[in-house]
């Protein structure tokens, strides 16, 4: 796996992400500065990590989405390259047009950091092949603006095409408002683009890869990606 982790000013989970990629795949990712105009040669996975790029000023992810490196990410995605955006990364991908919709303030208007349960909707994607469809995983969220919305038509398409990969649920997989901690439509926690190669998600699987500091439910995502890219190579 040759992963590239993008670094924007104000991003702060890039170290967490890099450590996890290294831990699970065995390969050190490249850290790519926002002002660069090209990705390192041979990159097979671009990761947009979490944090507060540009302080989340204006709108979350808005300023980062317009950074020079994002043009290269668009080109990479257009050719089918895999892109993973987590938390602020998800917001950046939406703002840049790589994913539809918007992440609004959490329903209760507060930043929330807690473990949540996610139902994995499909296992036949490069991102979720490390899980079983319907499996419930526990991972932390830490965000103030993760309330996913899009217009009715977009939601219908996402649902119809099976592009919702993760949904907030109860520990036994029930999708219900009580377990939807931020008010996202249909409990959406993570979505794919129409090409199936760009994933954006609010929760932090990279923070749940070691039993001793939480749990290992986030590992499947990175293990699946490593496996997929290993086979492709």
């Amino acid at each position, binding site marked *: 796996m040759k992963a590239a982790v993008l670094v924007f*000013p*104000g991003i*702060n*989970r890039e*170290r*967490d992400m890099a*450590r*996890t990629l290294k831990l699970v795949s065995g390969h050190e990712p490249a850290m790519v500065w926002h002002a660069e105009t090209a990705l390192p040669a041979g990159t097979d996975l671009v990761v947009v990590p979490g*944090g*507060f790029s*540009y*302080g*989340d*000023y204006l709108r979350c992810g808005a300023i980062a989405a317009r950074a020079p490196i994002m043009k290269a990410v668009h080109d990479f995605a257009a050719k089918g390259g895999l892109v993973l955006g987590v938390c602020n990364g998800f917001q950046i991908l939406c703002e840049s047009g790589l994913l539809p919709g918007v992440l609004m303030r959490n329903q209760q208007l*507060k*930043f*929330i*950091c*807690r473990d949540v349960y996610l139902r994995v909707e499909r296992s036949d994607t490069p991102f979720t092949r490390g899980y079983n469809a319907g499996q419930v995983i526990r991972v*932390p969220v*830490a965000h*103030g603006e993760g309330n996913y919305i899009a217009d009715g038509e977009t939601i219908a398409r996402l649902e119809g095409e099976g592009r919702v990969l993760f949904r907030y649920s109860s520990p036994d997989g029930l999708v219900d408002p009580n377990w939807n901690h931020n008010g996202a439509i249909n409990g959406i926690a993570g979505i794919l683009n129409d090409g199936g190669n760009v994933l954006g998600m609010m929760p*932090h699987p*990279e*923070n749940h*890869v*070691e039993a*001793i*500091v*939480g749990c290992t439910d986030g590992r499947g995502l990175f293990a699946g990606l490593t496996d997929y890219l290993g086979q492709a190579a």
Partner: protein
Amino acid sequence: MPNTVKITPELVAEHGLKPDEYERILKLIGREPTLTELGIFSAMWNEHCSYKSSKVHLRGLPTKAPWVIQGPGENAGVIDIGDGLACVFKMESHNHPSYIEPYQGAATGVGGILRDVFTMGARPIACLNALSFGAPSHPKTRHLVSGVVAGIGGYGNSFGVPTVGGSVRFHSRYDGNCLVNAMAVGIARADQIFYAAASGVGMPIVYLGSKTGRDGIHGATMASAEFGADAEEKRPTVQVGDPFSEKLLLEACLEIMAKGCVIAIQDMGAAGLTSSATEMGAKGDLGVTLDLDKVPCREEGMTAYEMMLSESQERMLMVLKPEKEQEAEAIFRKWGLDFAVVGETTPTKRFVVKHQGEVMADLPIIELGTEAPEYKRPFVSLAKLEEIEADTVQAPVDTIEALEKLIASPDLCSKRWVWEQYDHVIGGNTVQRPGGDAAVVRVEDGPKGLAFSTDVTPRYCEADPFEGGKQAVAECWRNLTAVGAKPLAITDNLNFGNPEKPEIMGQFVGCVRGIAEACKALDFPVVSGNVSLYNETHGRAILPTPSIGGVGLLEDFTKSATLAFKCEGEAILLIGE
């Protein structure tokens, strides 16, 4: 503001200086000060910067142990945790600003303490806080709680440090004066700690970070003045925090430190340029000349007086190795931060401030600190409350009801509402999250871990200051040992009322002596701290609240113990008396 303003007794009083303190200034410099100089004295000689009421007593605290690398007196304390690593930590109050503007007050409090830690070359790995609010039923409490908690989260979450623990209490004695004590902890290489003392003559003094505005002018003086009824009208300029800039400042500072560019560095906290520049000079036994025309300003027409007293956040002062100046500048520009050479070190031991071709201040730099007034304020110990024999007290309610009442009480109920607003997992090293006895954070890739806890029980301190001080330290020690850590050192944040009242001074002295006694007995030195006095409204003081922030070490973080019962049928042991 011209340099020719006549210094009247009213002006002196407005600067919070007593007539005899002003006499001291006249004697020291042999002439009437300029307005800028008066401002500089007011900033340096107020309680907040000079510790004039508390210093004599703080000397009684034990500050040494073989593992202490740096005790009180620098931006933060430093202890050795082995493997070539050091733990850097400190706690500081932002009480008055938080009462006036809870979100920004708390946010800038967190920002300030984080700067104290990374100024020393450490990457912050955890934040904690100790919060005291008025009665839950008081009309202002809800607003203060939600603002302060959101502010702490807003700053720490964006900056990217996990907030892993703390405490929240409610009592009517904090109705008009909440307490916001923030603690930050960082990790550095033990042989790469950075200090404030400048060295070498003719070295460039560099200004870094955000631009200077008219924020919090008189803020440092405000932090030492008792609140009157008009506090809400006289709203001073509030400092606004910018965690984004601070995050950039962190990365830029650590980068130039790693490149070996830095001789000395000092955070611009309260009394901004004034205290940072004089401290760097005085500690290095050197003079400093500042050219204010070079200071990056956010607003037009700022006077020397305003620049010297501004409390704008996210700023630092540094002495650079001259040959590394360009390299350092390039790094700062890369991070989009201001960088300006604003002065140099001199052999004269004078603090000279120039603006638009005029000398606005010319003061003896060492004496500015050492000649600050120091008071041995009179203190009395209030008669101790009579001891009550336990058997003579009738249970007012039955046990179950009492238990329910206790669990539901604001002080003892779950604080999840608070700590869920703090990102406590960022970094991927939080081994024990909020909710236990102490937080545990893995050190880099392990196997070591650090444990943190903040503690104090103000009603004990009021009932018996000496015993209360001891108890706060002991409780902190117990919380650290309960997770399996060896307690190493503490930082303290001493919050009290008006020290000019002998009974308040008595509380202060008693608590400090108690803390000292416990720390000595436990070999648990104090390596940093902060004093916040004049926490009073309408003449009514807060409960004496000496917050203790403790740090302990686990040789193997995977062996830390948690408080949850693990399975059915296990024996429960009670240890201790």
